């Protein structure tokens, strides 16, 4: 299923499968939605989708999330508090599956269905997750690598590169601990390795992604800043941008792209005419106003967007299905991801996905 066809909320095709009239069991039910965060635009759109679904399907929800994506203890406590309130179902985007395993087990024992969303609850114990509405981050990130490799400028530089004079690619990753970010970073790197040839790519910087190659033409540097604070993201991006022979830089989520934007005068430095980094190619992930403007102006080659609205909407819809005792065939519902660039943004179907 393509994500764009369900962009307009009321026309959501999946909601047909859970119409209010034959779902009496769910009427007025309380569903606790626990996200991985709260502050980023991404989550705001997820929340919007969830709230719309709640309205359409006549349930009440609360939407909560920890202050940062490393606050595992806070998320676990939130989950517990949510369980204590006796919800009919829980929607959960776990920061880390291990930390919530016991709560999932308790939910199972208490008969509270759990629906995963966003990165979901990967490797959850058998039978504890009803279904998951998520983006396939690994596949989504490989879109960015494909686009980069298809770019003519990059191709020319790649062909010209030699093991003596390799070209460099920088990857800015907010952290190296959350599943989705690891997927988005490794999805990009792995695809790059496939496209460029295994013998040609070396990965340095962060230990998780290290890969050696004797005669590498491409050196990928992964930088994980000290904290997720904007200031540290910017410093991390600057460190990448000062690498010799850097031809491209990729930020693996909204915050990562934000770091690159902050380090480049809101993207202006990638201006193809007279920008400081005019010869470099920048790619992002997710959206947000500044990033969107950078893509629109052609400073960023483009970016990968998920469909946060659908993520939120489908999570709640699945929860209602679960309350109604419906069975699902496919445990993972891909909410889709799309590559967008200045050209694509002119298409309203795509433009709608790219939140500000």
């Amino acid at each position, binding site marked *: 299923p393509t994500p764009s066809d369900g962009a307009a909320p009321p026309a959501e095709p999946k909601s047909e499968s859970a119409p209010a009239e034959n779902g009496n069991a769910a009427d007025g039910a309380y569903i606790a939605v626990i996200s991985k965060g709260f502050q980023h635009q991404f989550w705001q759109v997820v929340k919007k989708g969830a709230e719309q679904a709640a309205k359409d399907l006549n349930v009440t929800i609360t939407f909560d999330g920890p*202050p940062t994506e490393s606050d595992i203890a806070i998320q676990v406590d939130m989950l517990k508090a*949510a369980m204590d309130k006796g919800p009919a179902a829980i929607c959960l985007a776990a920061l880390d599956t291990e*930390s919530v*395993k*016991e709560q999932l087990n308790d939910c199972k024992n208490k008969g509270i269905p759990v629906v995963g969303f966003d990165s979901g609850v990967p490797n959850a114990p058998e039978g504890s997750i009803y279904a998951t509405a998520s983006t396939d981050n690994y596949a989504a990130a490989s879109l960015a690598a494909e686009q980069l490799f298809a770019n003519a400028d990059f191709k020319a530089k790649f062909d010209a590169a030699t093991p003596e004079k390799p070209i460099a690619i920088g990857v800015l990753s907010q952290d190296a601990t959350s599943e989705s970010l690891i997927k988005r970073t490794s999805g990009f790197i792995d695809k790059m390795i496939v496209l460029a040839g295994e013998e040609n790519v070396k990965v340095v910087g962060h230990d998780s992604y290290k890969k050696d190659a004797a005669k590498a033409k491409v050196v990928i540097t992964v930088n994980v800043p000290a904290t997720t604070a904007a200031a540290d993201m910017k410093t991390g991006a600057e460190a990448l941008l000062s690498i010799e022979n850097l031809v491209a830089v990729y930020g693996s989520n909204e915050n990562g792209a934000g770091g690159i934007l902050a380090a480049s005068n809101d993207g202006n430095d990638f201006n193809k005419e007279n920008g400081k980094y005019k010869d470099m190619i920048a790619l992002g992930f997710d959206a947000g106003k500044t990033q969107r403007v950078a893509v629109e102006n052609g400073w960023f080659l483009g970016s990968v967007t998920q469909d946060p609205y659908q993520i939120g909407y489908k999570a709640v819809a699945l929860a209602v299905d679960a309350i109604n005792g419906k069975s699902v065939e496919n445990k993972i519902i891909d909410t889709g991801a799309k590559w967008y660039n200045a050209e694509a943004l002119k298409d309203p179907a795509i433009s709608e996905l790219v939140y500000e």
Partner: protein
Amino acid sequence: MQTIKQKEKVHVDFQKMLAPAALVILYIFFSIFGKNFFSGSTLVSIMDSTYYVGFMAFGITFVIITGGIDLSIGTNMMMSALIGGYVYNSGVNIWVCLVLIIAISTVVGCINGSLISRLKLPPFIATLGMMMMTQGFGSIITKVQTQRFPSAFDADGGYKAIFYKTPSTPLFKTGFPSGIVYMGIFFVVALFLLNNTRFGRYTYAIGSNEESVRLSGVNVIKWKTLVYTVCGFFCGLSAIVYASTYTTIIPGTGNGLEMNAIAAVIIGGTSMSGGVGTMSGTLIGAFLMSVLKNGLMSMGLQGHYQTFFTGLVVILAVLLDIYRNKKAAEVK
């Protein structure tokens, strides 16, 4: 003389009653207005979220009574848990790792103590530096990789039955919260240490007037180092319960937690200027913060309201204390 003494006694009792009273009032308040707050499962949640803060708060109570401060407790706790997890994941027996956790955090406490007592660094600065160093060091050792402890269903998960929760039993369907026993035991240990031992007496004495203790022929350097070491030891206990409760340890975290522990100590009536404080106050302070947290969530208020109200409670608690002391002075 007799009347003065009686009045003083009434005053002390009032002072001792205030924090528990606030705790009870808050609990009743949330039971009435919160969604499903008055329930066994919420009570267990409250206890669960008290454990790790509580242990740190016990430890830092000693430090604060000496008039010092330890900003490194949160990161020390996380670093020990991280390294413990790292060693566990490289194949070492889980029990050895738990002992290692305590050893590491105790050593960090001892380094803090030596910097402060032997090299005469101000506590704020020594432990600020140590806070940054432990946070960085945990990341360096683990190469910034998340460390996972075995969960209850894993082969090695048995330790959780002691430090966090037993498997399901007929009486306790979701398992007996054994963490409360673990915390209870070490609360009694801390209480005993503070009130019945030379260590505790010197803790108060140093907080009251360090130079006079030194000139009484007491080896202040030794005892002060020991105070920070004990604080480190409690961080290790906290790290174990944290690992049991939350399973996953993320590098680069832990700073900020010290402020929660300090807030619990302050709400419990311990003075930052040293010489005054009780362990039971700290226990109540820690529970008060958990009740606030879970209660606000049960009322549908999100996390940030909790942050706001905790701050407010800290200020009000100390204002009340100042006002009460003034009042008491006037009555006398």
